[in-house]
């Protein structure tokens, strides 16, 4: 009983404080003019604030479970769509400086998206969910598949950039990191939720997801509050060094 009270209090604290942080994040995005660079992310943040307020009010006013589930499902689907928009925005930001990568990366990402979608569908067939309400199980499966695709895409960005030697802009990296942590925790908790269906586990997983959201919001705030670092300074070095490089390269390439 004590655990229930304690976890309830923690859950509510995380839920409310995440929302307050999100609101702060919205203000930061607005005041720094970052909403122009990341309009979809800005819309996502505002939407999440509105969604959480609505769900909190419904939770507090003790509406029926069915009504709560309908609202939850509808807002969840919209949230998924917005997250895809944010991922698209991050990819454009990441590849914007290279014409070659814009084309090459688009093709690769299309292939990866197709592959991940296939895996998501396969998982939906293999593990169709355990909720009694069939429509809600469907929503859960869609959410799980989306989390799989989104996690895969965000990881691909990180691996691509590492492989190609691409440097991230701090803001885009922060958004990717936060969203990636959120979707990967979602994915893991769906897996655990399918295996452990007891009431205690469900509470624990809810707490984990809410806690992860709190962490992600903090990461976004942290990365978006700090201004982009100035470009690395370019210092002049002695002329002989350049000549030496020249000779070395000539020797290397023409021998």
């Amino acid at each position: 009983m004590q655990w229930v009270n304690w976890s309830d209090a923690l859950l509510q604290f995380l839920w409310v404080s995440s929302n307050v942080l999100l609101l702060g994040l919205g203000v930061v995005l607005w005041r720094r003019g970052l909403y122009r660079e990341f309009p979809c992310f800005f819309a996502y943040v505002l939407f999440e604030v509105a969604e959480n307020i609505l769900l909190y009010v419904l939770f507090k006013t003790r509406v029926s479970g069915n009504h709560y589930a309908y609202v939850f499902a509808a807002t969840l689907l919209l949230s998924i769509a917005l997250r895809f928009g944010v991922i698209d925005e991050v990819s454009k930001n990441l590849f914007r400086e290279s014409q070659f990568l814009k084309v090459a990366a688009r093709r690769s990402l299309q292939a990866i998206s197709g592959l991940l979608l296939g895996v998501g569908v396969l998982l939906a067939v293999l593990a169709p969910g355990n909720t009694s309400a069939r429509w809600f199980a469907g929503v859960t499966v869609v959410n799980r598949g989306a989390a799989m695709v989104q996690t895969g895409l965000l990881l691909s960005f990180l691996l691509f950039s590492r492989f190609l030697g691409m440097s991230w802009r701090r803001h885009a990296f922060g958004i990717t990191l936060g969203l990636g942590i959120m979707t990967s925790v979602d994915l893991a908790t769906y897996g655990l939720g399918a295996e452990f269906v007891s009431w205690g586990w469900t509470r624990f997983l809810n707490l984990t997801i809410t806690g992860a959201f709190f962490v992600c919001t903090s990461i976004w705030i942290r990365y978006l509050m700090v201004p982009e670092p100035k470009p690395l300074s370019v210092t002049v070095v002695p002329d002989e060094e350049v000549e030496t490089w020249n000779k070395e390269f000539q020797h290397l390439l023409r021998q």
Partner: protein
Amino acid sequence: MEQGISTLAPAMIAAWVLVAVGLSALAILLYAALRSRTRPGDLERAVQAFRALDIQAFRNLVDFSEEAFLRDHLPPRKFRAIKRQRAWAAFLYAWEAGRAAAQLAMVGQAAQRSSDPTIAASGAQAAENAFRLRVQTLRAGVILLAGVLLPGLQSRPIPALVDQYERSAETLFLIGRGSSGSRGLEVA
């Protein structure tokens, strides 16, 4: 009962796969976050990495006429063994060239953000060439690995890798010359 267990098993496997994928992704993300703090562009390292590669040796290793000569003059078993060794050596070259290209890309991008338009333009060109080279090395690596695994197959041409490598190295030199007059630059 047995039927129940058999339908349950894939669901259980799928659930644990999700857990594993989610936790692995989380670990990679955290690793990336920690690594992102310690990756400055280093022109010197890029130059050294390029210097360390013997382009001529690589050319010889992927030369069709040499391969044809070996095929014609060696017994098949011996030819396959040598072909495998040559393909592996060329693969290592491609691997290192790719790493050098990634270094160059970082330097190029840093230079691209310079307030000096000449340096910025050189940086953009260097980064673009380096990205191309990196992708080419990946494609070449796949072809060369196929040569290691299946040495009996006729080799496919390595996709313009040498030319791309040369262009990248030349651009790297141009960055070096990019600052005023005859003086070079490095990214600090």
